[in-house]
């Protein structure tokens, strides 16, 4: 599914300059814990989070994520948008909760990242 379709499904708004909305999204990872994102999210997955600080953009870029969804109507700080613009990372904002965002995208066919058992990694 294209990021542009996700924008519509989540009744979301795009912020920043990146126009890379025709990227294909196959799976997503939702978390407010960036170390968990770094540990468990698949490269290339869509990041769904309620945090909006600049480190979210850093985390997404380390994992070559094609976009970030900020949930719960949170607006990112100026420096977050500036860094996302610099990295060509699209940010979309939705007023929906994280649960609802995940539910909508899951129902629309977006898959979960493979999440291995934590013990004995």
């Amino acid at each position, binding site marked *: 599914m294209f990021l542009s379709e996700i924008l519509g499904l989540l009744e979301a708004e795009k912020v920043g300059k990146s126009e890379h909305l025709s990227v294909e999204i196959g799976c997503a990872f939702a978390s407010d814990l960036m*170390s968990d994102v770094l540990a468990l999210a698949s*490269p290339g997955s869509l990041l769904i989070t309620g945090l909006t600080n600049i480190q979210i953009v*850093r*985390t997404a870029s380390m994992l070559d994520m094609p976009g970030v969804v900020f949930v719960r109507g949170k607006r990112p700080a100026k420096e977050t948008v500036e860094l996302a613009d610099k990295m060509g990372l699209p940010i979309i904002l939705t007023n929906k909760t994280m649960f609802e965002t995940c539910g909508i995208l899951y129902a629309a066919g977006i898959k979960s990242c493979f999440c291995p058992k934590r013990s004995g990694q």
Partner: protein
Amino acid sequence: MSAREPLIVQREVKPLDFLAAGETASEFKELLKSLGIPTDICRRASIVTYEAEMNTVIHGGGGVMSLRLEDDAIIIVAEDQGPGIADLEKAMQEGYSTAPDFVREMGFGAGMGLPNIKKYSDKLEIDTRVGEGTTLRAYISLKGQREE
């Protein structure tokens, strides 16, 4: 690759500067990509650098990050003159953290930093002394790929 002088890049990391934190990891990643290092290895090196950089920013009182590219491995070193790690065994456990609340509110400090560094590197050495500082060395092999 043929034998050659290793490439070494060093960057200073400032304490508690959360706007700049991650710049070193981004820079190292771009550099490795530009040198034609495989994408998955660039990604692992950048995650290792990023977590180590966050630790240096949060706990180490700032320090120096370096990237060393040898024929068969990437070596990431994070060196600080901070408080040291009192209980390294505990610090290596998932979920153990001494980070303050304001760091947790940014999505870090959940006790996953060192476990993540271990997960994404092929060899990890930590030399730490309480009151003197910590040097972390993570090796990522360029020989043979592995599953992420």
